[in-house]
């Protein structure tokens, strides 16, 4: 497995709709992402960044091209196989947090483990460890309504981390947060990345993108530029 890139997109196209109403969102994306990367995907609305993110998250399949994840051609997998892939290797963080309401932080974090068939004790232990990673152990028994936006997003990150995934996919993770909370979240993502998780993030804020190692810019369904070693803001404590 070493030497092979974690994620490989080759000539990925995506068309929505049929006939005259058809809209080509992606017109041939080539992109390679290695393990340990922290990639920020940027671009104006309609540039195809969210579509790409959905494909990378195995939530959607491309119309054409090849998407290899850990060497597996994802476009050939069926719905359930992609679910298993998500369950095993991917963690999701959304702009709107997407926590289950009226459910405690701890239970939210435990949720992915439920589908792995782990015992209650195992789930609790792993969930508490993940909450510890985001510094929210004291808030474990609070429901989302009792948490601030920043805290909710940290619970969501803990939920994404609890399965110890290879890749963390974050879709506008700071979109609903003020700048102070946003920086907190970015520093957290940086720290997790430095601990070995590959982070893929969609954002339209230059400042947030600057926390990433690589910035990929989209325009009109194509990759416009790839800036490697783009990082200008070092993580706190100066790791890496």
């Amino acid at each position, binding site marked *: 497995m070493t030497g092979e890139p974690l994620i490989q997109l080759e000539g990925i196209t995506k068309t929505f709709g049929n006939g005259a109403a058809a809209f080509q969102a992606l017109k041939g994306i080539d992109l390679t992402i290695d393990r340990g990367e922290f990639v920020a995907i940027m671009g104006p609305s309609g540039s195809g960044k969210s579509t790409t993110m959905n494909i990378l998250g195995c939530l959607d399949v491309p119309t054409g091209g090849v998407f290899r994840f850990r060497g597996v051609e994802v476009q050939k997998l069926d719905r359930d196989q992609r679910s298993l892939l998500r*369950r095993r290797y991917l963690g999701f963080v959304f702009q709107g947090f997407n926590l289950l309401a009226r459910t405690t932080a701890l239970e939210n974090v435990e949720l992915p483990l439920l589908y792995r068939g782990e015992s209650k004790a195992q789930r609790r232990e792993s969930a508490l460890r993940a909450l510890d990673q985001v510094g929210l152990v004291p808030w474990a028994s609070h429901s989302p309504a009792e948490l601030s936006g920043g805290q909710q997003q940290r619970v969501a990150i803990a939920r994404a981390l609890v399965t110890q995934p290879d890749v963390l996919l974050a879709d506008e993770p700071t979109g609903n947060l003020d700048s102070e909370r946003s920086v907190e979240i970015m520093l957290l993502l940086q720290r997790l990345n430095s601990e070995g998780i590959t982070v893929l993030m969609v954002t339209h804020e230059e400042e947030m993108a600057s926390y990433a190692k690589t910035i990929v810019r989209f325009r009109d369904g194509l990759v416009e530029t790839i800036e490697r070693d783009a990082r200008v803001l070092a993580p706190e404590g100066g790791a890496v």
Partner: protein
Amino acid sequence: MFGSTLLLALREIRRHILRSILTTLGIIIGVAAVVTMVTLGNGVTASVQEEISSLGASNFIIFPVRTTRGTIRPFDEADVRAVEQQIAGVDLAAGSVGAPTTAFYNGQDWDTRVEGGTNDLLEAQSITIAEGRPFSADEEQAGKNVCLLGLKVRDAIFPSATSPIGANMRLGDIPCQVIGVMEERGQGGGGADDDDVVFMPLKTVQRRFRGNDNLDYFVVKYDAAYAAAAIQDSLVDLLRERRLLQGDEPNDFNVIDTAQINQALGAATGALTAMVAVIASISLLVGGIGIMNIMLVSVTERTREIGIRLAIGALAREVRLQFLTEAVVLCALGGLVGIALGFGASIGLAALIDVPFVFDPMINIVSFLFAAGMGIVFGYYPASRASKLDPIDALRHE
């Protein structure tokens, strides 16, 4: 996994407790109706069967009827003996005659009925002696003044602590000695209370109360191995012959087959049960549609949740199982509540209409399983719809 799915389902139901109750009302009412009606039906059947067994299991009851000329020709002992001796398949035949009377003992009095019969009549009508002894052959032949008390008469005129056996009491102005007490028999045919009676030898009643040898009716107990219709035919032929009825003259007597009464009552109970089943099915169907409706609402309300679950790797079948479990748990709880209500209602109603409460575990189990099955049938479509949602669309759902 299944444990947590169950827990989740219970939590969702509790979260919308009023909605859950209203939704399951159809199931609750349906199950309660089935349980109540079947339990009461069993009670009615039991009490009817008790009544019939008091007539005897496979008996003919023969009594004279008024002819077109307005006369009644009673049967007598000779007819009974002829039937018993000349018709194959007849185990025994015994006549009965009765009269109203008043029982007196130790200053107490009680209006009741005296019935004359032999030990054979007691046997044919499945009457057993609870205390004391039946008539002796000598008492029957000589028409002695001995009597067997029905429970009600015994309770009415004898102190409860003492045994009435051997006591000398009076029926009207006829003295008699108590030799036994009959087992409780309950409500008899035609609404008469079979326990409110005093039995004396046939001859005693004929001679002392009626002053003739007539019989009110007689009972023919036949061997169940024989065809009842054939016996009845020979019976009718023999009696017509003995009563000198010409070819086209109608019978001036009636033959009732208790087995037929049994069948007729069984058929009536069956029809009632079928009707209840239809009504209950409609109620359950309506309840099921309610379940389906609310589950569809629930799926729409929780679209985002479904999106989250799918995104973090839930399989389609796991999402389906979650919603299906919720529907089944909802219906099963409705079933339990319905059974509890039905249980209470049938105890209350059984007491009200005076039939025994006969608990039937089968109908309770079947109703419960049926209710749970409704959850599968009517929960499947909403659950399947939830499982087919596109995670991207579901996550975007507001």
